[in-house]
């Protein structure tokens, strides 16, 4: 079985999103608490501080899954302030 056409298409999407400098999952985690306390604001009002954070979010499904769970817990009032 070789790499499928569908996988090549997903890879092409990722290549189009690739930046020379990207944050990794550990750096994303370090920014997550600050984001969690502000995510209900409009993206624009967060300024450029979270640009690399949003970029990582768009290419890393694992970090996306965790952040979605955290945002939902925050909205449900399960995180202490």
């Amino acid at each position: 079985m070789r790499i499928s056409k569908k996988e090549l298409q997903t890879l092409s999407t990722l290549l189009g999103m690739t930046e020379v400098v990207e944050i990794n999952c550990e750096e994303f985690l370090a920014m997550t608490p600050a984001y969690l306390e502000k995510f209900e604001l409009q993206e624009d009002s967060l300024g450029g501080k979270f640009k690399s954070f949003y970029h990582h979010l768009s290419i890393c499904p694992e970090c996306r899954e965790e952040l979605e769970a955290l945002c939902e817990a925050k909205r449900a009032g399960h995180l202490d302030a």
Partner: protein
Amino acid sequence: MGTGVDSSALDGERLRRGELRRSRLRDRRPVSTRLTQRTNEEWIAALSSASPGSSSLVDELTAYIRRVLGSTLKNKALKSDDIEDLAQESILQLLRSLDSFRGDSAFSTWVAAVATRTAYTELRRRHARETNHAAYFQAQEDALAESTKSEGEDSDLVSKLYATIDDSLTEKQRIATLALLRGVPTIEIAEQLGSNQNAVYKLVHDARLRLRDALERRGVTAEALDQFAVQGGQQ
């Protein structure tokens, strides 16, 4: 934010998962899952001087983590014992990671983020073991076989993509990239490659940069790649 936490003490005998779990089962004292109001500095100072394992502070944090994980893992259909295991794993990780707390959020928010990361990573690791790493080994086989060679019916772009993957990437880059495309968890790729998750991210990031440059040299434009990717999304 720096701390003076004695991590060797915090990782001491009483904090070893098994014993701590047994003591929890023996001693189910009601512990509030609401954290006591403290400033970030007070949290760090209190944890720095906490008695390892027997600290009510650790009990308080563990109860909070249990509540957080009950929420962030609610779609995972876990038993309460699983949540307890993951909470114990998380508290250990948290105490080891105190130095990484930057202080730009409430301490409780940082605790929730670290605990959730620890628990999800552990669940991904367990799933990989339960499936005998099948997805990883298939990706490895496919990435290393002469399987990326073009076949007659491929378009020019697809042929160039296969050739570029073959020519431009190292074996490790091909394996890690294909495994990630197939949803193999980063933690599993890292363990199989004898590496860590940050290194895997860098490996694949470098692979993406290499591929993009090599494709450009082969005359493949960003627009052509976008168009090809969009076709995939429409199917």
